[in-house]
């Protein structure tokens, strides 16, 4: 039943073999085939552009007012690629290996190897589109380093890499819009998948301006709807990021892979109060240049700059000398939590640690700049001034953002940071072709589960989104559509469209008619609190069991007592939110069930029952070397299947960053 369709042959030959043998659709037939792409982030915009260029008729959807505003726009630090431009020993194999290891051996070898292979094409593509990556004075591309690796392979555009990559993909897609190959529907939200004879054949979407439900046919449907970190209410995701598209697909038969795998990012601006609506990331690239520390003394009251060097605990450098501040995210997050829980936290809430740039401002950047400018024996002040200029160039917008939010100047005082929900490795289960368990329904980007196992390495989500959209789906979808060329567009008066629309309409009506007393927001906050406390950075059996009961009760209360103001046939942001939160209330429970099943620690999933003496995550490969694949059986019943992970090339070991 679960066939990942991994091509036979040697790992490094699989993708080439696949491309050499998959079925093709000729240009005349492509024009007759319609593809729906839900989402215009890096995955969706790149897929829509590439498929449009091939000649398919594409309809693309996003809920924002413009495709360019998808959440990918907010990605900061960079994108990985195995170019080895730094001549520091990088290769396709090394990127593959780092990703598998970083993912704590819970990702598929074949998918990850393909990702590493196409990573090099992505950079070429983006440069050709005019993405203004950072460059050296010699005119060539520059790199920085990210966590979980020992090479410099991350391409970037200051702290706005996602923005620049997305604008590249957006422009490529708008070019196809102008050419008539892509039709764009912004301010539209997909609310169901339409199935005909066991295949995905369209969607029901709501025009968010008029409130009307609309039907769209496609020979295939490609979901690129992003991650579901907002289950936790507070996360680094954009406010609108949601799980509705994948959740609806799940309920129509698409399996859900590893739902509990969530990434908690170590460096975010801490919560300041109850009003908090989201958390802001401070890019991982800052860990390159910043050192993380807490005071050695508990309940420290001195200001950061008044604490002398020898009274600071650079705990990452102490615990992990080989990787230091650049350990993977899950390790860094847990270490921060450990220090704060032990009473060494800083700031008013004591739920924060310092990220300090002074050392590198002076030593790394200040000194290089001084020597470049021929200043001998520069004093401390000169070093700081010169260092600041370089840091401004590298990270300017991030430092400004920190100052706007906190009112503190991070050039002068260390940043205060704390872990926050950031990314979901879990997502719809897909096979090697990125097809879900529903025929003709694909899933790309953060929305699928495929490449990051139990923990994603920094700068690899952008890589995956663009790999999926530009370089994988154009081949794999052809392999399916080649057999669909005889299928005429199905009129949306078909009974399956009728039924799907009626179902959506009924639910919206129910939501509006409850007219209870609690706002959608308050339910979302309560769900987030349960998830963060019981399915967050540390999980245990008791907590997870409680969470499942609590979420069920909360969901019941929601359907009895939520208050959604406004009307159906109008712009109604509260209704949009209600639809999304209703789905989060179901997905949250599944995440807890999955976390409960996995009685091992791996990557971002830390089960307190399974740790080493030093408090490191302890995997159990004998029992849990599988992807958990959840099948929705109707009426809130779930069944779990297992996709075994067979490693042919890499020998899993306990990760060691010491």
């Amino acid at each position, binding site marked *: 039943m679960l066939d990942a369709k991994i091509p036979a042959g040697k790992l490094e030959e699989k993708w080439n073999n696949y491309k050499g043998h998959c079925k093709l659709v000729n240009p005349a037939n492509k024009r007759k085939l319609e593809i729906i792409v839900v989402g215009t982030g890096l995955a969706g915009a790149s897929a829509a552009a590439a498929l449009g260029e091939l000649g398919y008729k594409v309809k693309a959807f996003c809920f924002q007012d413009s495709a360019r*505003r998808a959440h990918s726009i907010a990605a900061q630090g960079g994108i990985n690629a195995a170019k080895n431009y730094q001549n520091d020993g990088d290769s396709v194999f090394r990127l593959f290996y780092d990703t598998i290891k970083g993912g704590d051996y819970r990702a598929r070898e074949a998918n990850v190897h393909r990702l590493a292979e196409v990573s090099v094409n992505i950079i070429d593509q983006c440069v*050709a589109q005019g993405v203004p990556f950072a460059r050296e004075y010699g005119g060539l591309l520059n790199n920085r380093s990210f966590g979980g690796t020992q090479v410099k392979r991350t391409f970037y555009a200051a702290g706005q890499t996602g923005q620049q990559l997305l604008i590249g993909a957006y422009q490529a897609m708008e070019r196809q819009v102008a050419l008539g190959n892509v039709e764009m529907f912004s301010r539209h939200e997909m609310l169901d998948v339409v199935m005909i004879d066991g295949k995905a054949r369209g969607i029901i979407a709501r025009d968010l301006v008029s409130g009307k439900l609309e039907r769209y046919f496609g020979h295939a449907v490609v979901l690129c709807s992003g991650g579901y970190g907002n289950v936790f209410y507070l996360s680094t995701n954009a*406010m609108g990021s949601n799980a509705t598209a994948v959740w609806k697909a799940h309920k129509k038969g698409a399996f859900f892979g590893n739902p509990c795998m969530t990434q908690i990012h170590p460096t975010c601006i801490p919560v300041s109060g109850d*009003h908090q609506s989201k958390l802001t*990331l401070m890019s991982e690239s800052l860990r390159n240049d910043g050192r993380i520390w807490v005071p050695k003394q508990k309940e420290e009251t001195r200001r950061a700059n008044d604490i002398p060097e020898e009274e600071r605990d650079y705990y990452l450098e102490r615990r992990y000398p080989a990787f230091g501040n650049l350990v993977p995210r899950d390790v860094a997050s847990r270490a921060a939590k450990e220090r704060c829980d032990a009473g060494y936290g800083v700031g008013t809430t004591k739920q924060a640690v310092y990220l300090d740039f002074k050392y590198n401002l002076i030593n790394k950047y200040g000194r290089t700049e001084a020597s470049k400018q021929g200043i001998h024996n520069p004093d401390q002040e000169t070093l700081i001034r010169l260092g600041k200029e370089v840091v401004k160039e590298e990270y300017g917008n991030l430092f400004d953002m920190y100052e706007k939010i906190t009112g503190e100047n991070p050039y002068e005082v260390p940043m205060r940071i704390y872990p926050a929900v950031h990314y979901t490795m879990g997502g719809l289960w897909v096979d090697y072709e990125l097809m879900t368990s529903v025929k003709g329904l694909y899933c790309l980007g953060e929305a699928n589960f495929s490449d990051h196992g139990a923990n994603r390495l920094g700068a690899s989500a952008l890589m995956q989104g663009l790999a999926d959209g530009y370089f994988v789906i154009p081949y794999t979808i052809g392999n399916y559509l080649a057999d669909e060329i005889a299928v005429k567009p199905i009129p949306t008066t078909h009974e399956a469209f009728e039924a799907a629309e009626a179902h959506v309409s009924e639910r919206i009506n129910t939501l509006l008619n409850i007219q209870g*007393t609690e*706002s959608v927001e308050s339910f979302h906050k309560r769900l987030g609190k349960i998830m963060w406390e019981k399915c967050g950075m540390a999980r245990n059996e008791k907590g997870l069991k409680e969470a499942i009961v609590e979420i069920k009760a909360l969901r019941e209360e929601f359907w009895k007592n939520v208050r959604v*103001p406004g009307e159906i046939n109008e*712009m109604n942001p509260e209704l949009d939110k209600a639809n999304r939160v209703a789905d989060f209330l179901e997905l949250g429970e599944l995440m807890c069930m999955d976390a409960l099943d996995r009685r091992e620690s791996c990557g971002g999933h830390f089960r307190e029952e399974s740790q080493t003496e030093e408090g490191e995550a302890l995997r159990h490969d004998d029992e849990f070397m599988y992807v958990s694949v959840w099948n929705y059986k109707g009426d809130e019943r779930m069944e779990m299947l297992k996709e075994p992970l067979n490693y042919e090339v890499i020998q899993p070991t306990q990760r060691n960053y010491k």
Partner: protein
Amino acid sequence: MEHYNMNLTLKVWKQKNSQSAGSFETYQIKEVSSEMSFLEMFDVLNEQLIHEGKEPIAFDHDCREGICGTCSMYINGRPHGPWHGTTTCQLHMRAFKDGDTIVVEPWRAKAFPVIKDLMVDRSAFDRIIQAGGYISVNTGVTIDGNAIPINRENADKSFAAAACIGCGACVAACKNSSAMLFLSAKVSHLALLPQGEIERKRRALDMVAQVDKEGFGSCTNTGACEAVCPKEIEITNIARLNREYLAAGLAADK
């Protein structure tokens, strides 16, 4: 940073949809923390309104990190409010003090019709990009990234222009509702790179033609756009656009 709480009066534009006429509504909001963002203050107000059984205020927002360009409030007569180089979502309440009255309106421009309350339709910007805001390369048929060295100064300038978030504050600030700063940022981003060279002329002509078609006004160099742009896009880009346009026009005449 010292934190404080404040009580505020808000005068907010309410408009049911694009067809109806709108008007200001006045709201009182208490105990606003100086640590809140401006949009978090709106969240709190909306929660209050829902509890009172009233209609919440519709406004556009998404990333809340100053990068997606969705948020778009005209605050006390200035797009994105009082802080320089800052989007509405990054504006924080410590910019205000106890007892203040804050007036909030949507962008106002013929080419940006109001959809509801503070939300406007900015799809004209997408159509301007469709007219030529790209480099025509198909996926997969490219050369090695490092085969095109680019002088760092131009790369940096191009990046600075590409930082535009398409928010439309420049249009909202301009008495003529001109879109020149937005347009010039895109033309500069691409014209400063060797990859963009080939389509340079056609791009300038086609994009300018689309801007005119969308009903944006003409540029009279008042500089109001640059003053409010949250990404500090420089007005020198408009001069570059004019040069590009002129050169393209001359070439086309031949």
